[in-house]
C-alpha cells in the first residue's frame, strides 16, 4: 500500500461540528427580507386533461402575492438528457394534462405558509379524467391509454446491448435457467425535504439556493426553462441533508421560486412537506427482470440473456440513465462471454421513478445474485465457489464498456467468507437461522455526456497564499457524503499541507470553476479528486521552479511539497516553507497571485466508467418461523474501493448502505392503490431506524486504482446493492423461502414456508 500522510486517516469531517451543534444552515433555515412562501397545487387525479383553472379567488385572498399556472410560464420542457431533446418530457407546471397524482398544476406565493396553503384550496381546476395505467404490463398493451402524445407505445426508451454469440453460448451450456424477478418502489427518504429559495439581483440575475445534488445542471435547465441565459442564473448549494439520487434534476419548485421571484421582485421560498415527498416524490424504479443464464457443469457462466422493464412512472426523469445502466450492471461482477440485454423504460400514471443510490444496480444485481445462488444449489456448488469461479479480475475487458483497471473482487469474496465463518455456518446453523451472500460491482462515475456539457466533467481552482494557506474552489457538491473533506484531504496530501491550511468554497455556480456534473454515479471522489490533483500539480510546478531558482538547484533534483515545506528531496536544507515559496512565485510575477486551474474529463475510458468498485457481503439472520419476522444478527463486508481516503467516511457509507439495503430487503415499499401512494408518513413508510441496525464488520481490500486520485474509487453506491440479496439468501437458508419479488415480508415468508 502506498503511504500517505492525510489521505487514509480519519480526519474529522469539515461539516461535523456545525451539524452536531445544529448551526449548519440548510435552505429552509434561510429567511430574506420580504420573502414570500410558496406552495404547489398538485393533481388529485392520476391522468386527466386540464379543462380550466380559475385562480381568481386564490389571487384575491389577502396576503397572496402571486399565483401561476402552466399557462403563465414559457412552456419549455426540460430533462437531464439534453443531448436527446425528445426525452425531455416534463414542464415545470402542467400544460393541458396531468399524468400522476401529485403532478404540479399551479403555484402560490404568499406572505406566510398558512396563507399560501389556504390559497391552494381556492384554486378551482376542472379536469376531464382519463383512464390511467399503473403497471408495465397494462401500459404496453396496444389499447392502453397514451400518457405522452409523442410516445404512443408508452415505451420511452429502448436500450439494447449485445456481444459474443448468445445462441452459441446457450448451446454450449450444460445447465440453463430462466427466472423472473420483480422489485418494489422505495423512497430516498432523505431527511431534508426539498427546499429552494430564489432572489433576483440588480442585474436581473436569479440566485437560487436549493437542496440539490447538481447545481450546474439546475443552473442550465433553469436558464432554459425561464428563457434566460445560463450566466443569468446563480445556483448555490447550502448544506444538504442527503439526496441519494432524489435531488439530481430541476424540479417544479425550483422553477416556481425563480419564476415568481422574477415576477414579484421578492425572494420566494418553497419547502416540501414530508407528505408531499412521500405522496409525489421521486422513487426507485420498480422493475420486472427476466434473466436467462447458462452454465457449464462446473459452474462456469457461458451466457446471459437479460430483459428488464422499468416502471418509470409519468415522466422520464432519470429513467433513461437507469435503463442504460441496469443493462451494464447485468454484465458486471462476473465474466459473461456472451451477453444480451434489452431494457425498456415504460410510462405509467404514477409518480416518476428516477435515480436512486445504485441507479439500477440494486435491482439488476438482486436478480444476478439470487440467480447465482439458485444455480449454485442446482449444480451442487457452494455459493462462494461459484462466485470465485466466475469473478471478474483486473484486466478483464467488458466488451463495449471498459477494461477493468483494478479489481479486488476475489479478495473480497475470500475475506468475507473468512470473516463470517461461511463454510462452518452454512452447514451448522439451527432451524430459523441462516447465512447468505450478496456481491456487487459499481461504476466510479459515468463517462457518458447525455447532459451535453460544454465544460470539463469536474474542475478545481487552487489559490495559494504567502501565509501558507490555500483556497480550493470546486463546484463539486457535498450533500452529506463528505466530498468537501475528501477533496481537502487530497489537496492537503498533494501540497504537503495540513487540513487546517485549506479553505474551501464549493458548489456555487458563479464562484467555482465551470463545471461539475454533480454528486451522483459515485463520481465525485474520482473526478473532482483528479481535478484537484491536476490543479495542485500546476501549483507545485510553479513552486518548484521558484525554489530551483532561489537555491540554484541542479536540474536533476527532485523537489517535493512535504510537511508544510517545499524542498529538494535529497537536500531538505534547500527548502522554504510553503508560504515563503508562494511569496517567491508571487514576487517573480510582480504580485500576480498564484492560482491554478485543474480539470478532469474521462477520455478513452470506454462507454460507461473509468473505474469499478467491487465487494462482497454476508448477512446472518434469525427468522421467527411463526411471525415471519426477520432479525438481521450480523453483517460482514469486504470491499474494494481502491485507496481509502477517509476510513470513517467509508464506514459511514457502509452503515448507510446497510440501513437502506435492510429497508429494501425487508420493510420498505410504497403501498399503492392504482396511482395513489397510501403510506405517506414515516409511521407507515417502514424505513429502518438506528435501533434496527445490525452489528457490522468491514475489511477494506487493499488495491490501487490507476485512474483514481491517489488510487481511490467509488465507495458510496456499490454498497447499496449487496445487502438485499445477502439478507434474502440468508432468509432462504433459514426457512426455505426464496424471494423472487422484493421485499421479503413476513407474510411472504410464512406463505413460502407453508409450500414446503
Amino acid at each position: 500500500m502506498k503511504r500517505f500522510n492525510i489521505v487514509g486517516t480519519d480526519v474529522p469531517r469539515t461539516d461535523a461540528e456545525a451539524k452536531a451543534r445544529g448551526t449548519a444552515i440548510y435552505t429552509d433555515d434561510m429567511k430574506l427580507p420580504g420573502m414570500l412562501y410558496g406552495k404547489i397545487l398538485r393533481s388529485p387525479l392520476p391522468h386527466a386533461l386540464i379543462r380550466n383553472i380559475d385562480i381568481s379567488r386564490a389571487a384575491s385572498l389577502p396576503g397572496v402575492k402571486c399565483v401561476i399556472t402552466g399557462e403563465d410560464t414559457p412552456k419549455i420542457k426540460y430533462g437531464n438528457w439534453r443531448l436527446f431533446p425528445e426525452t425531455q418530457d416534463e414542464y415545470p407546471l402542467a400544460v393541458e394534462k396531468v399524468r400522476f397524482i401529485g403532478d404540479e398544476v399551479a403555484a402560490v406565493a404568499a406572505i406566510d405558509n398558512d396563507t399560501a396553503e389556504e390559497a391552494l384550496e381556492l384554486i378551482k381546476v376542472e379536469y376531464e379524467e382519463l383512464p390511467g395505467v399503473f403497471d408495465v404490463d397494462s401500459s404496453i398493451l396496444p389499447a392502453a391509454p397514451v400518457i405522452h402524445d409523442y410516445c404512443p407505445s408508452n415505451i420511452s426508451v429502448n436500450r439494447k446491448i449485445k456481444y459474443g454469440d448468445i445462441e452459441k453460448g446457450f448451446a454450449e451450456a450444460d445447465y440453463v435457467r430462466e427466472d423472473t424477478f420483480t422489485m418494489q418502489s422505495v423512497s430516498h427518504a432523505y431527511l431534508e425535504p426539498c427546499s429552494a429559495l430564489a432572489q433576483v439581483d440588480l442585474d436581473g440575475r436569479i440566485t437560487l439556493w436549493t437542496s440539490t445534488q447538481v447545481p450546474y445542471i439546475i443552473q442550465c435547465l433553469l436558464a432554459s426553462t425561464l428563457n434566460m441565459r445560463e450566466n443569468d442564473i446563480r445556483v448555490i448549494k447550502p448544506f444538504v441533508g442527503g439526496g441519494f439520487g432524489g435531488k439530481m434534476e430541476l424540479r417544479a419548485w425550483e422553477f416556481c421560486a425563480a419564476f415568481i421571484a422574477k415576477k414579484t421582485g421578492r425572494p420566494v421560498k418553497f419547502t416540501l412537506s414530508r407528505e408531499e415527498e412521500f405522496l409525489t416524490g421521486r422513487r426507485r424504479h420498480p422493475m420486472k427482470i427476466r434473466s436467462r443464464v447458462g452454465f457449464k457443469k462446473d459452474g462456469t457462466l457461458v451466457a446471459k440473456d437479460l430483459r428488464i422493464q422499468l416502471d418509470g412512472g409519468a415522466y422520464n426523469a432519470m429513467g433513461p440513465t437507469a435503463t442504460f445502466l441496469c443493462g451494464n450492471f447485468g454484465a458486471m461482477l462476473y465474466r459473461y462471454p456472451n451477453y444480451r440485454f434489452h431494457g425498456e423504460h415504460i410510462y405509467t400514471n404514477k409518480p416518476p421513478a428516477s435515480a436512486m443510490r445504485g441507479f439500477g444496480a440494486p435491482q439488476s444485481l438482486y436478480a444476478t445474485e439470487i440467480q447465482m445462488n439458485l444455480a449454485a444449489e442446482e449444480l451442487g456448488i457452494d455459493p462462494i465457489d461459484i462466485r470465485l469461479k466466475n469473478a471478474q479480475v483486473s484486466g478483464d475487458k467488458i466488451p463495449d464498456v471498459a477494461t477493468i483497471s483494478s479489481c479486488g473482487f476475489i479478495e473480497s469474496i475470500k475475506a468475507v467468507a473468512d470473516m463470517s465463518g461461511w463454510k462452518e455456518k452454512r452447514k451448522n446453523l439451527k432451524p430459523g437461522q441462516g447465512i447468505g451472500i450478496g456481491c456487487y460491482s459499481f461504476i466510479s462515475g459515468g463517462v457518458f455526456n447525455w447532459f451535453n456539457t460544454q465544460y470539463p466533467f469536474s474542475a478545481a481552482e487552487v489559490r495559494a497564499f504567502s501565509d501558507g494557506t490555500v483556497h480550493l474552489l470546486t463546484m463539486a457538491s457535498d450533500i452529506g457524503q463528505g466530498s468537501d473533506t475528501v477533496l481537502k484531504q487530497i489537496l492537503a496530501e498533494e501540497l504537503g499541507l495540513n487540513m487546517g491550511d485549506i479553505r474551501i468554497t464549493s458548489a456555487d455556480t458563479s464562484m467555482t470553476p465551470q463545471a461539475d456534473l454533480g454528486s451522483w454515479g459515485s463520481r465525485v471522489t474520482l473526478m473532482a479528486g483528479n481535478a484537484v490533483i491536476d490543479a495542485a500539480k500546476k501549483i507545485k510546478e510553479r513552486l518548484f521552479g521558484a525554489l530551483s531558482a532561489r537555491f540554484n538547484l541542479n536540474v536533476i533534483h527532485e523537489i517535493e511539497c512535504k510537511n508544510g515545506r517545499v524542498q529538494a528531496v535529497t537536500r531538505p536544507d534547500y527548502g522554504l516553507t510553503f508560504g515563503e515559496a508562494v511569496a517567491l512565485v508571487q514576487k517573480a510575477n510582480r504580485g500576480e497571485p498564484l492560482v491554478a486551474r485543474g480539470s478532469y474529463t474521462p477520455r478513452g475510458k470506454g462507454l460507461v466508467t473509468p473505474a469499478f468498485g467491487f465487494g462482497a457481503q454476508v448477512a446472518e439472520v434469525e427468522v421467527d418461523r411463526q411471525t415471519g419476522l426477520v432479525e438481521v444478527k450480523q453483517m460482514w463486508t469486504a470491499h474494494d474501493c481502491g485507496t481509502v481516503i477517509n476510513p470513517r467516511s467509508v464506514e459511514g457509507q457502509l452503515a448507510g448502505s446497510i440501513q437502506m439495503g435492510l429497508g429494501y430487503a425487508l420493510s420498505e415499499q410504497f403501498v399503492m392503490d392504482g396511482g395513489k401512494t397510501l403510506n405517506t408518513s414515516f409511521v407507515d413508510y417502514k424505513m429502518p431506524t438506528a435501533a434496527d441496525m445490525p452489528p457490522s464488520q468491514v475489511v477494506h481490500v487493499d488495491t490501487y486504482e490507476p485512474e483514481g486520485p491517489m488510487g481511490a474509487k467509488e465507495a458510496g453506491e456499490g454498497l447499496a446493492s449487496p445487502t438485499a440479496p445477502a439478507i434474502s439468501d440468508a432468509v432462504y437458508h433459514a426457512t426455505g423461502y426464496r424471494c423472487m419479488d422484493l421485499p421479503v415480508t413476513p407474510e411472504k415468508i410464512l406463505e413460502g414456508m407453508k409450500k414446503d
Partner: protein
Amino acid sequence: MRLPKFEYFEPKTLEAALNLLTQNGNNAHLLAGGTDVLVKMRNGRLKPEAVIGLQGIEDLNGIHFDSGKGLAIGATAKLAEVASNPDVLKHYPALAFAAGVMANVQVRNMGTIAGNLCNAAPSAENAPPLMAMGAEVALANLQGDRRIALHQFFRGPGLTAMEHGEIMTAILVPFPVPKSGASYKRVSARCGVDIAAVCVSAWVALDGEVCKDVRIVLGAVAPTPMRAVGAESFMREQTWTQELIETAAAQAVQESKPISDVRASADYRKKMVAVLTLRALEQAYERAIKN
C-alpha cells in the same frame, strides 16, 4: 395547515377545568400530552374553539401505588414516567412494556396513558394490557365521579363512553392477586420504532394448575381493542395444558375481525392473533406461577 383559532386555558384545579369544559360545550377539547390532539388540529381534523390543558392540575400527574388499592395513574402522567416507574415495573410489567415500546421517545416523553385511551385508536397500545388486568377509568364531571371498566369504555374508532363534560382523571388497576400474571405481545414490520400491526395481552390467575380466571385482549384487529371472551370462557376452570392454550388461541382468531390496510393484511393479522395469543398466555402463565 394553519391551526384553527382557539383559546387556550390552563386551569389549576380539576373543578376549574370541569367548569371550562361545561361552559364551552361541544367546542372545547381537552389536552393532556397533545401528541394526538395537536396533530389532528394541524391537519384540520379537529377544530376546537377552546383547548383546555390539564397539565397545570397538580393532582392529575401522579402515579400512586398501594398494595391494597393497586395502581392509580393520573391523567397527565407521561408514558415514559409510567414505563420507568419502579412499582409499575415490579407489579405491572406488561403495562410498563406497552408504555415503553409504543410510538417513539419524543411521544413517550409528552404523551399520556389517558390520552392514548381517550384517542381510542383500534391500535392503542396501552389498552390491551390495561383491559387484561381489569383496569377501570375514573371519570369526573361537575356532578361527581364515576368509574367504568375499561373494556366497556371503547365504542368505536375514536369513540368512547365518555360523555360531554367529563374528564378522565385516572386509570385504576387492581393489585395483582396471588398467582396471577399479565403479558403483552406485539408485532410490527420494523423492530426498532414502530406502531403495532397486531397486539395481544393476556392475564391469568391460577389455582394450582387450574386456570381460575383469564382475560385475552386483542388490539388492532377490530374497531376497538377487544376481549376474546369465547377463548376466555373456554379456558376458565380448565387445567392448564399446551392443548388448552392452543385451542384458546385458535378461538381468539375466530373472534377477531381484522381488516387489510397498509400495515398488514387481514389474513396475516389473523395468523398473528394465534401466535401472539399463545405467546401472551405462555408468558402470563410464567409470571403467574412466580407471583
